[in-house]
């Protein structure tokens, strides 16, 4: 009997191994947000970052980057200022609510460059060459001169991992910059969508979509994209729209980190979960 069981096990060992590995992967998915697992993840990320940063420091030795960085920095600052000026031209009623906004032009920007990108099934994450050593924290928005690129989700001493707007896990409350119609922006099936906009929302092709003050992650205005099309406007109770992303995260090399983790509280409870993790 034992001999038979042994033979059976040996003949099916690859199936047992497959089952074990698939169960292990499923288990990892279920515990991926746990603190201990995050620690392992951070360690792996730190090792990888050390390797890529060392490699890049050698290759970048001959390339003068300071001038490019200063021009790009100026561009990003102007973008933030521009966002604010755009806000100022909307009608009185909205202007009153805008007075409560934080002055985004006063935010401290940290220039960084993309050291590596992770593309997988139409999703993009990337790492940058700045980390906790430069004062960066989880939850800080990453921008370019054109708009929002993503949010920092992992930080080591000398690098950070950025979850871009092309990631299924990043969802932001956004609105059009002309009106007050908010919806939820998320990357779905290779498209940047804004869902749950009311049918009454006056949205037109080409409209600029910015982050909404209702967002608990980025509550100050930063461009995320432009309206490309409205999906089935005659159907359902809400409108879904497709955006052209303001930032092409597949191609950018230089970014800026807004050194500010947005905080939004209700009843003493922090709504920005990136801030909660801190």
């Amino acid at each position, binding site marked *: 009997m034992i001999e038979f069981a042994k033979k059976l096990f040996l003949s099916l060992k*690859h199936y047992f191994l497959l089952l074990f590995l698939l169960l292990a*992967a*499923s288990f990892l998915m279920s515990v991926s947000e746990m603190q201990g697992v995050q620690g392992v993840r951070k360690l792996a990320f730190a090792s990888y970052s050390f390797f890529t940063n060392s490699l890049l420091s050698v290759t970048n030795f001959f390339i003068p980057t300071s001038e490019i960085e200063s021009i790009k920095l100026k561009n990003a600052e102007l973008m933030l200022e521009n966002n604010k000026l755009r806000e100022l031209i909307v009608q009185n009623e909205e202007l009153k609510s805008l007075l409560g906004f934080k002055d985004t032009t006063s935010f401290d920007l940290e220039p960084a460059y993309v050291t590596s990108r992770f593309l997988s*099934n139409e999703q993009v994450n990337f790492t940058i060459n700045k980390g906790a050593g430069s004062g960066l924290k989880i939850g800080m928005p990453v921008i370019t001169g054109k708009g929002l690129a993503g949010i920092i989700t*992992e930080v080591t001493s000398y690098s950070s991992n950025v979850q871009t707007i092309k990631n299924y896990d990043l969802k932001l409350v956004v609105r059009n910059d002309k009106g007050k119609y908010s919806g939820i922006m998320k990357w779905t099936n290779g498209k940047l969508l804004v869902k749950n906009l009311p049918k009454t929302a006056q949205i037109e092709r080409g409209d600029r979509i910015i982050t909404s003050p209702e967002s608990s992650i980025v509550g100050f205005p930063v461009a995320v994209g432009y309206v490309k099309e409205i999906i089935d406007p005659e159907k359902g109770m809400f409108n879904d729209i497709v955006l052209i992303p303001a930032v092409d995260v597949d191609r950018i090399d230089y970014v800026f980190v807004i050194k500010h983790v947005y905080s939004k509280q209700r009843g003493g409870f922090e709504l920005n979960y990136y801030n909660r993790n801190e």
Partner: protein
Amino acid sequence: MNKYKSILKYFLVFSVFISLQTVLVPLISVGSFSPDFLLIFVVYLGVMRGHIWGSTAGFITGLLFDLISGYLLGSSAFSKTLSGFVAGYFYNEIKSVQIIKSVSFVLIVFLCSLINFSAFAVFTGFDSVSSLPVLLFDQALPPAVYTSLITLIYIFIVPKSSGDYIK
């Protein structure tokens, strides 16, 4: 001793492939679609060594990618384990090297890519409003075709003598 030598070789090859995946792939991506060099490595191992090596390599490779990329931990490990295991069905002690050199390898990579990207799409991109066939057609087919095309290029540039293969 030989086994450890092979593992060391595979680790070095893996390092090259992960570098390709993070440095070269962003430059050659078409729209949002990109090839998966790590998957080619996993399928290669599956065809050359069988189910156990294929699925184990798939798990380790996927897990390392998940750890450094920030995607859902275990999602790539799951999909690549499945792909590596399926690649193992094409293992043949005598013909493996010939398979690697032929167009059959491209077809195997295509099949395994479909499985890999479909599984990954289901775990990371599936929500209540997505239809499964559309999800698979939109997210699995294009990168699978792209990865196969990259493999086709590999077929033309690989060494022709069987002694050059790592096994």
